[in-house]
């Protein structure tokens, strides 16, 4: 059962190719891959790279939806290619393009620098005024305190939400869904004391206020994070802070 037969079903993938310094703009190359009902688009890409064209470049790692590396546009929708089954796109063809709204380095590989910079800027870690020494033991947290932020902690930094966000597409300076959702996750964490340090990033014009609540970020998120909710709640918190600072400029802030 190892030989491919003449009657074996195949699918066509229309894949974006782009060679920096060589191509002025991306172009499309069509590949024919075997159809297997348990294959995902990533399997098809690996087949292309292994058997047809070894120059095809793309990112992937865990192939099980936890690393966030393999995000691409599949038929115009941001998806993890390890979670996009060929059988859901039959008979095809399937259009595979680099993740939208990001600069393309080569083929399906996009430049992540902007997102990484924004991630660093929102300080996605527990911030304490004074760190507890290890000898004092763990930070204790009730299940209810965990529930408050758990959903937003599921982010795998796959950036599908940035690809779905038209605001980010039109304004690259927008801090964006995942970064804001992660800032929100740490602000909600009972162990964290860093709200004031994250506030300048969120309260900028290109912070939460740029968002127009299109909501597509939450639709495409493969981990159910709901960044749109995080952003709107951050707007409410930010506006409340602002109002209080107007009414009581001498203090009274969180």
């Amino acid at each position, binding site marked *: 059962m190892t030989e491919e037969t003449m009657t074996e079903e195949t699918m066509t993938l229309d894949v974006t190719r*782009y060679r*920096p*310094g060589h*191509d002025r*703009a*991306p172009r499309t190359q069509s590949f024919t891959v075997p159809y297997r009902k348990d294959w995902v688009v990533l399997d098809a890409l690996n087949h292309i790279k292994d058997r047809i064209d070894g120059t095809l470049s793309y990112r992937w790692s865990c192939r099980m939806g936890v690393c966030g590396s393999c995000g691409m546009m599949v038929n*115009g*929708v941001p998806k993890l290619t390890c979670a996009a089954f060929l059988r859901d796109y039959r008979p095809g063809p399937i259009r595979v393009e680099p993740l*939208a*709204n*990001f*600069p*393309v*380095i080569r083929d399906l590989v996009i*430049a992540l620098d902007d997102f990484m910079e924004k991630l660093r800027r929102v300080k996605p870690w527990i911030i304490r005024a004074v760190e507890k020494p290890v000898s004092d033991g763990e930070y204790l947290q*009730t299940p*209810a*305190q965990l*529930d*408050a932020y758990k959903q937003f902690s599921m982010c795998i930094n796959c950036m599908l939400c940035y690809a779905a966000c*038209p605001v980010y*597409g*039109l*304004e*690259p*300076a927008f801090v964006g869904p995942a970064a804001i959702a992660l800032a929100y996750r740490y602000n909600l964490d009972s162990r964290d004391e860093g709200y004031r340090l994250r506030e300048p990033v969120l309260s900028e*014009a*290109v912070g939460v206020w740029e968002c*127009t*609540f*299109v*909501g*597509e970020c939450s*639709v495409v998120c493969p981990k159910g994070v*709901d960044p*749109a*909710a995080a952003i*709107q*709640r951050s*707007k*409410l918190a930010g506006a409340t802070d602002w109002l209080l600072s107007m009414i009581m400029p001498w203090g009274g802030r969180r």
Partner: protein
Amino acid sequence: MTVPRVERPGLFYPKLPATWWLRNANYFRFMLRELSSVFIAVFLVVFLVQLHRLPQGPGAYAAYLETLRAPGWIIFHVVALAFALYHSVTWFNLTGVVQVVRLGERQVPPWLVAGSSFALWAVVSVVLLWFLLRG
């Protein structure tokens, strides 16, 4: 103001077209939702003009009502009502997302928050209708 992005040589920078909102149903519905604010604003201007006519006497007021009977205005108000209802429904659904209500340590489920907003809308509408029509 935002700093223009520095573009590195060799990379391809895609541009989002102004027609992005025609690409899928969710984007399109978003645009409709935003557009609803235009129809609401126009209706409120129509209302303001009506209030302006009030102190000018029953003649001026009746003449204005006559203008509103024109088929163009009726069609406008039908369309505006559809948009206003779309705004209300999307708005109250979103209250569940935006407003987190905590009772002690537990969070009120979003559908309940949204449901309460809809219930409020129903009550307010009935009271308002009664108030407007009873004379």
